[in-house]
């Protein structure tokens, strides 16, 4: 058994890693870990004034600092019933477009393209893509300039404040931004073609749910007061928790999220998938030209979606500037509210960002911040496990590490959001024993034996369950005892659920493997019997606490005799469970 891990995911912002453990022919474990330490930012805000909190929270992440600022301002202003004048909204949109261009161009050119072009970094890549790299750097610099003009600094600018801005940029500065944006258009169009025409591998490809802000007036946009899902559902921002459902996982300081028990994805790809039809102008033309069904199933297309959004931003900037020039600079809106609560949502470059605050006696008493990477973490693990298993099945184990790296990077995880690393590990011999012991330590498991006793080794699961029953172990069930594959009533997700079955891992007969049940989903060859369980009966979060203890059969010919290696395996498992 081995473990493939990208310890220190390079070229992502922040510090984290992804690891896959391989036991023979099965990927038994995939973990997206964030090594960044806990900063307790939400707790740091308690007892501070709303203004101070707006200073502190963008420090969660440098690359999304403007989005954090924007989301915090929207939440505070919602809470404090402040309506900002339209020039304030326009300058905020401008700084946000700047950040979108900066972040996307940094990601696609600096971080992602070297993978596809086969270089370790953008500077080395400059030997082949000299002009592209040069102009991409200029584009990023321009985006930084926009952010600096609007917010005061490249990173952590403090000019945007509750109720408005400390200072508005001069007319000449705005006019310069407008003319420069127009100058970049030919390169931006080339960028979209470059990234939409890249040869994205077809693994992993699988359906998921996409979520993003629902912009106003049926337009494409990066802000709204509702969340729109690819399922067609629309949620009010105040009900964000029904989508995000954050929970703590032991292998990361970033919490994870699921919607209706299922992982979902946010980011540029989610926005383009959900709202792409609304794109107008050149971005609309490019969307029609390049968009296809694979975009909805393959996270690697996030790179293409980001390129498309750069185009959207460049087309939007001149319009925003035009509108701003017609308006005079408003003063900061004052407020008197001391007791309030409110939520603000915004699209950060990497996806939906939620800030929610409660204010009591003029001071912040509760803060909840849900970052895009926390929402993507589950899907990142899922897509990596799909990719790892597929590549392993195809005999391309050597590609697993790089592919996982590619998947993680496509999500452009802003790891410092909370939280760098892919790793492939070979599990040690008899790794199932260690894992089984760990699970037993947490809570006493419920066992279900599965299989057909009339097909020789396929009866191993049943045989094992019967022997356990005989030994007086409690909470052991046979497949036949479950009505309509209903999970035993005692199973509420708090206790681990362990299935026994003969599974063909293409290993030596009698080899035992132990893996999360959800991985069966990522390995179609193994999934036959468990699909009803997984798709119909089991909540996703419970699925994470369900496991498969599989024994490699020698034969599943008709007959009732269990082969000697499988028999020995049953005895070994019995011994471990009894211990």
């Amino acid at each position, binding site marked *: 058994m081995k473990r493939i891990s990208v310890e*220190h995911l*390079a*070229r*992502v*912002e922040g*510090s984290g890693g992804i690891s896959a453990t391989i036991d023979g022919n099965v990927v038994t474990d995939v*973990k997206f*870990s964030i*090594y*960044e*330490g*806990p*900063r*307790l*930012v*939400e*707790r*740091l805000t308690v007892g*501070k*004034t709303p203004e*101070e909190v707006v*200073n*502190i929270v963008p*420090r*969660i*992440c*440098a690359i999304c*600092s403007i989005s954090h600022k924007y989301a915090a301002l929207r939440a505070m202003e919602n809470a404090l019933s402040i309506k900002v004048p339209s020039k304030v909204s326009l300058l905020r949109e401008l700084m946000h477009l700047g950040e979108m261009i900066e972040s996307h161009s*940094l990601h696609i050119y600096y971080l992602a393209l*070297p993978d596809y072009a086969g270089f*370790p*970094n*953008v*500077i080395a890549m*400059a*030997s082949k893509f000299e002009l592209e790299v040069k102009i991409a*750097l200029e584009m*990023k*610099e321009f985006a*930084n300039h926009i952010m600096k003009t609007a917010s*005061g*600094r*490249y*990173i*952590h*600018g*403090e*000019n945007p*404040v509750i109720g408005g*801005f*400390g*200072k508005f940029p001069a007319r000449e500065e705005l006019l310069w931004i407008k003319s420069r944006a127009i100058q970049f258009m030919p390169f931006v169009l080339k960028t979209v073609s470059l990234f939409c025409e890249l040869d994205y591998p077809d693994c992993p490809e699988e359906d998921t749910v996409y979520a993003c802000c629902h912009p106003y007036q049926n337009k494409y946009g990066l802000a709204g007061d509702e969340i729109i899902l690819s399922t067609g559902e629309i949620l009010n921002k105040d009900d964000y928790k029904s989508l995000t459902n954050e929970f*703590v996982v*032991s*292998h990361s*300081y970033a919490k994870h999220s699921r919607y209706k028990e299922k992982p979902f994805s946010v980011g540029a790809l989610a926005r383009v998938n959900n709202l792409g039809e609304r794109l107008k102008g050149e971005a609309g033309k490019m969307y029609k030209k390049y968009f296809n069904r694979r975009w909805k199933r393959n996270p690697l297309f996030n790179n293409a979606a980001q390129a498309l959004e750069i185009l959207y931003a460049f087309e939007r900037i001149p319009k925003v500037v035009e509108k701003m020039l017609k308006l005079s600079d408003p003063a900061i809106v004052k407020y008197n509210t001391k007791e309030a609560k409110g939520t603000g949502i915004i699209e950060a470059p990497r996806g939906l960002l939620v800030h929610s605050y409660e204010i009591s006696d003029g001071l912040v008493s509760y803060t909840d911040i849900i970052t895009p990477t926390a929402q993507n973490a589950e899907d990142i693990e899922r897509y990596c496990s799909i990719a790892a298993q597929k590549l392993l099945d195809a005999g391309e184990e050597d590609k697993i590490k790089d592919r996982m*790296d590619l998947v993680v990077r496509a999500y452009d995880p802003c*790891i*410092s959001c909370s939280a*760098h690393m892919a790793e492939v590990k070979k599990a040690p011999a008899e790794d199932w024993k260690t894992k089984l012991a760990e699970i037993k330590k947490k809570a006493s498991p419920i066992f279900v034996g599965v299989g057909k006793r009339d097909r020789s080794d396929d009866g191993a699961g049943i045989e094992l369950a019967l022997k356990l029953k005989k030994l007086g172990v409690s909470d052991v069930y046979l497949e036949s005892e479950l009505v309509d594959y209903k999970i035993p009533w005692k199973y509420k997700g708090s206790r681990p659920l362990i299935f026994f079955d003969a599974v063909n891992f293409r290993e030596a007969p009698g080899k035992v493997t132990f893996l999360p049940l959800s991985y069966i989903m990522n390995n179609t060859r193994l999934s036959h019997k468990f699909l009803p369980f997984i798709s119909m009966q089991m909540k996703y979060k419970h699925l994470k606490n369900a496991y498969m203890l599989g024994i490699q059969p020698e034969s599943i010919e008709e007959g009732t005799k269990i082969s000697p290696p499988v028999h020995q395996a049953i005895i070994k498992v019995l011994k471990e469970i009894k211990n």
Partner: protein
Amino acid sequence: MEKENNDKLKIGIYELTGCAGDALLILDCEKELVDIFNAADIQSFLMAKSDNIDEELDIALVEGSVSTEREKEELLDIRKRAKTVVAIGICSCFGGIQAAFLDQKEWEKNFKKIYGDTKMTHTKPVQSKPIDAYIKVDYYLPGCPIEKEQFLSTFNRILRGNPPELYRFPVCVECKWNENDCLLNKDIPCLGPITRAGCGSICINHNLPCVGCWGLVEEANLTSEFQLLQEKGFDYDFIKKKMANFSGTGIADFLGNLKGDKK
């Protein structure tokens, strides 16, 4: 185009817990990035490259605070490998916003409020501290984030074996250079007098008070600033919290000895 790596100094750029803003700012040196990679042998820079190696280094630039056991080990290893260690950014220099829980018990209580009782399997959390809590730091380059020109100049000085040359006075000096009207005199709670310069008094240039994000200046007269704000009508606890927002462990002694908290 690139010089042979043999005669260049070996540099590692590392990120511990923080917003990654200092590493990002280095990437934001669009015009100078090629020069940076040409001037030095960048052995490790996770945000910028994937062929990273962790060997003997001439200079390590470390961003972020130490917030897990793993980071502590990584830092100790960096110190062992590097001839010169430079702390970059406020989190590395002083602990940053996450070092605001100065009391161990208070930190534990707040940790529990967020992560509950889940036992972290990947690495043990520790209360956030600046890197000099664990290792000897040769030079400090503060900022939140670091300032571009100051970084480039300092980076080049260090490459040539010279110590950094930084402004050692408070934001007020730069603020006056920028000919701003003093906000304290308008009864706005500005932390300029106790905050180190280098940002170019950016907030006050925008008519906004200094929030203190670069940390305390060496000679910060905290008592005077505190009383001045009190005279202007600000509440004792408000001032205390405000001063602690970005100062990290730098303000621990002052706040710990405040007479106002002692009966």
